């Protein structure tokens, strides 16, 4: 038995599992997205592309657009806040680098629901902030509450890749940049930023993809006006019992995300080739 065939055998158990429990369900999802429901709410297979037409109906498109909008805002906020934090830790962290990064990651070991719930506890009408300020400020049930919740929820996914990229960068490059460009801002724009592009891109993808499909933040921190596509899908599956339509929504969302995923992978591969050359 050659080494190759021996090692290839190892691929079988995991591969089979993924095939049966990951790929097949996606196939079923796709199939049922063209289906319909009977009077009892059971899903039936068939050929009903109307589901997709319905997805592109204005109401639902609005929700999709909102999801993308919130997700983009989340990415922007995560980058604006996360990058400086990562920069500080990587460049000025010194001995405390590992501790600081651990501190960044630590909040994420609190359950996502509990973390989001904590914001309700803080910002709700009977919450801590209102208690301190005395006023009754409406924090929740607003788009910014949802975006804030999403940002808080996915911040670590931006910081970690950016930190890794910054940490990997040779500090001598920054020194050289300071010589060449004079100001720290110039150095940052012309040296640091380009070198950490891949990290930033990775962070963007890691935040954007799950954020689009998130429904927890919108459900807990927002109202029906802030609903995202994730909430819609969840409704169709668990409340409205319209699985085919829910599936169609899911497929559309997935396809949209896949495009960005492929673009990102191409860019990462190109970068890897450039580095190797």
């Amino acid at each position, binding site marked *: 038995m050659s*080494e190759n065939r021996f*090692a*290839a055998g*190892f*691929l*079988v*158990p*995991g*591969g089979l599992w*993924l095939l049966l*429990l990951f790929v097949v*369900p*996606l196939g079923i999802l796709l199939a049922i997205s063209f289906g319909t429901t009977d009077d009892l709410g059971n899903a039936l297979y068939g050929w009903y592309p109307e589901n997709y037409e319905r997805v592109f109906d204005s109401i639902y498109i609005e929700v999709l657009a909102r999801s993308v909008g919130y997700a983009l805002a989340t990415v922007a906020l995560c980058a604006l*806040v996360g990058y*400086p*934090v990562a920069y*500080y830790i990587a460049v*000025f962290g*010194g*001995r405390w680098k*590992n501790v600081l*990064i651990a*501190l960044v990651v*630590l*909040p994420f*070991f*609190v*359950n996502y*629901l*509990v973390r989001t*719930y*904590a*914001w*309700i*506890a*803080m910002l709700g009408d009977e919450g801590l902030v209102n*208690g*301190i300020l005395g006023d009754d400020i409406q924090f929740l049930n607003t788009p910014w509450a949802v975006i804030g919740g999403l940002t*808080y929820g996915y*911040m670590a996914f931006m910081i970690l*890749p950016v*930190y*890794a990229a910054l940490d990997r960068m040779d500090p001598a490059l920054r*020194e050289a940049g300071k*010589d060449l460009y*004079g*100001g*720290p*801002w110039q150095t940052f724009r012309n040296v640091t930023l380009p070198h950490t592009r891949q990290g930033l*891109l*990775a962070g963007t993808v890691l935040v954007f993809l*799950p954020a689009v499909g*998130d*429904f*927890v933040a919108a459900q*807990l921190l927002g109202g029906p006006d802030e609903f995202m596509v994730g909430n819609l*899908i969840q409704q169709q*599956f668990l409340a409205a019992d319209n699985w085919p339509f829910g599936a169609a929504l*899911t497929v559309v*969302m997935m396809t949209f995300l896949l495009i960005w995923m492929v673009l990102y992978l191409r860019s990462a591969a190109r970068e890897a080739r450039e580095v190797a050359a």
Partner: protein
Amino acid sequence: MSSLAQADAPAAAPARRVAAKPPRDFDRPRFLRVFVGLFFVVMFAPIALVVLFSFNASRSLQNFDGFSLRWYERFFESETLRSSLLASIEIALITMVVATALGTLLAYGLVRARVRWSGAMNVLMLVPLVTPEIVAGTSALLLFTQVGLELSLTTIVLGHITFSISYVTVVVRARLAALDADVEHAAMDLGATRWKTFALITLPALWPAILAAGLLVFALSFDDFVLSFFTTGESPQPLPVRIWAAIRFGVTPTINAIGTFMLAISAVTIGLAIALPRLLGRRESGLGVLLGREGA
């Protein structure tokens, strides 16, 4: 921090260049330090709130009225919540064992096998990592219902395992790729069959990574909500699903207790992942193994 001294020095541009612009506040560590400090305050405030108020004697979320363990009592007295906690632990344990086994085997195959379809297998392994959980949840739900499997702890476990394999593979693969391939050749050269080589040489070299990956999977499974939400049966339900139901009905301080308790478990798990390899005689820590993989 020596680099601070460097950073505080004025820009190195000599006079012959364009007059050096005054260093912008953006890059001064002083400003950054404040910013980062604020960042941590905002990050930890909600958590501090949850932990603190889990010991609050009253229901209030605005005033701390004394120390009390009543919410924890409520938590552990509730039959539903107790069975949910046990269910979550059970699910996490089984997921940890199975996903680690499958993921490790997959990692070995991906690194050592040079077949035409290992590229496709690599992609297949990566896709679950970037699949939004709601897609995972709905497709899993579809699978189980179409196949006729009743939603229960079993279906939750099956779903968790599916999405945990990739984490294990990524962590173990990184470690395996760093190992000298000739060590395995040496073992075979000395008379060990391929199986013996794997058991006596490869696995012992990999175990810090396997352990770290396993504990990571445990933590992820224990905390999982969306996937569990779609694949859970009536009872018992894992803890995060119960929390969701509780939150939907309104804010109750028991949630603070549950959240704090879950935080403790997750912290211990990750702490073990980091500390165990060191304690059991290896130089590297689990943190290095896990973080080495972050970033594109």
